[in-house]
């Protein structure tokens, strides 16, 4: 097939979950600067993106001049999501009865529903289809300074205890990774896990990404959950953006 722009189809095949399209190009052909963005946009417009995304299908475009590969563009299935990664204006939980005195503000994802938590420690939750991002505040056993908590988090035994406790909400749970990070200068434990949850007799495979932020004498959980699928992987980027917007304003007040 000749597209009339110097490109002719050479072939198409699949390796595992990746579809590979091969093209012949003319000698003077070079890939445009934003070719990957353009291809993703084209796939979205054509409607294929959703199919690829939902079925976890990656796409790869290979461009040959004669028998030499001149260009290769790989698109992972989660890059084909139509999800919105834009954030809204800051909202604050200061003075919220369930915030237990924690003053925190963050940017919620645009287009997501913002709701009050219906369970005791859930201050706010952002909902989109089967996905949610929750702000949970729990009491710690006492005050901890940032230095003290950093020291505690350098102890693997202590971290494992936290992970064990945090993952107990899922059955057959598996911690995929964890690391110590800072969320607006407060030491935090970031981890993702997968496990199972049963609702009305239906078992679901769940993925969770969580930040446990140690703030004075509280633990703030920023907990993101969803079905264990490609959508969750795509949303991780959004979850990172939301958490990255977190501000504990009091620390800048003195």
């Amino acid at each position, binding site marked *: 097939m000749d597209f009339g722009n110097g490109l002719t189809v050479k072939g198409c095949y699949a390796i595992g979950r990746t579809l590979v399209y091969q093209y012949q190009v003319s000698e003077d052909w070079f890939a445009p600067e934003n070719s990957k963005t353009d291809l993703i946009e084209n796939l979205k417009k054509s409607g294929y993106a959703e199919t690829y995304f939902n079925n976890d299908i990656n796409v790869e475009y290979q461009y040959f001049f004669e028998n030499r590969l001149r260009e290769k563009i790989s698109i992972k299935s989660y890059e084909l999501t139509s999800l919105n990664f834009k954030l809204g204006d800051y909202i604050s939980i200061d003075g919220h009865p369930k915030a237990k005195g924690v003053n925190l503000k963050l940017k919620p994802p645009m287009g997501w529903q913002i709701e009050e938590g219906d369970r005791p420690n859930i201050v706010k939750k952002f909902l989109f289809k089967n996905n949610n991002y929750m702000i949970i505040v729990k009491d710690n*056993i*006492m*005050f*901890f*300074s*940032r*230095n*003290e908590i950093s020291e505690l988090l350098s102890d693997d035994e202590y971290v494992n205890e936290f992970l064990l406790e945090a993952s107990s909400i899922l059955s057959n749970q598996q911690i995929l990774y964890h690391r110590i990070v800072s969320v607006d200068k407060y030491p935090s434990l970031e981890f993702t896990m997968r496990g199972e949850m049963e609702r009305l007799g239906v078992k679901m495979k769940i993925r969770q990404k969580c930040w446990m932020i140690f703030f*004075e*004498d509280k633990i703030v959980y920023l907990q993101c959950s969803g079905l264990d699928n490609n959508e969750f992987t795509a949303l991780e980027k959004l979850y990172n953006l939301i958490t990255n917007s977190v501000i504990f304003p*009091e*620390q800048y*007040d*003195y």
Partner: protein
Amino acid sequence: MKKYFYTDGVDKFGPFTFEELKQQKITRETKVWYYGLEHWTKLADLDELKGITNSLPPPLKSNKEIVKKQEEITKEVYSQLSPPKKRKKLKRGILIAFASILALYLVFFFVKKQKQYNLYQEIKSSAYEADVDFNFYVEKFYRDIAVYGIFPKRPTTTIIKFAKFDHITNATHIHGISFGINDDDKIEIYINPSTWNTFKKPLRYYLIYHELAHDVLNLNDLANTPENEGKLMFPAIASYETKTMDEFIENSHALFEEVAAKWKN
């Protein structure tokens, strides 16, 4: 042959020959006379009767003399053991000085107590219920010290109020005061609302934990010296305006560790 007479002071005896006189019950002190001697003279003073004087045993000392001698010895020994009069005087002087200082101290103490009592009455009468939930801080304080193994008696009475320190003479500089120290049945703390409202979160925690440490743990202020700056029991916490919550937390933990070590002992 020469004849000798002697007298006992009342009667006169003699005449006696030298040999007869020698046999008499006479002593060196016995007064003797013979013809040619102008006065009655002590035997010991007569050279021609030396033969009799030498034959006599030495005189016994009288009881009086012995007692006198013993007294002298005792006095000497006593003088070595007991302070001389000068020392006694010094001792008396010290006692008087000590008594005077004690009296002064008691007066000072009484006046101070009276002043404290008056201040207490003034503060108490100016106190009013705050719109701040101070119990929130009290619960946190007990929670934190419990983690360190400190379990003081929970008093049945807890009074934490605002008091108008700004309207009381010599009290405008006070940010808070505890009157429940050494009284395990009561927490009684008064907070200056003016300063409370200007204090930021860390300083509020510093103030309340400081007063609770007085009241619940019966701790006194530390000396107002640079090495104590930053500590929870430092008396001039108004200078802590720039302190952070992290500093408050670490300093309160340092104090609780110290107290816990004493509790274990």
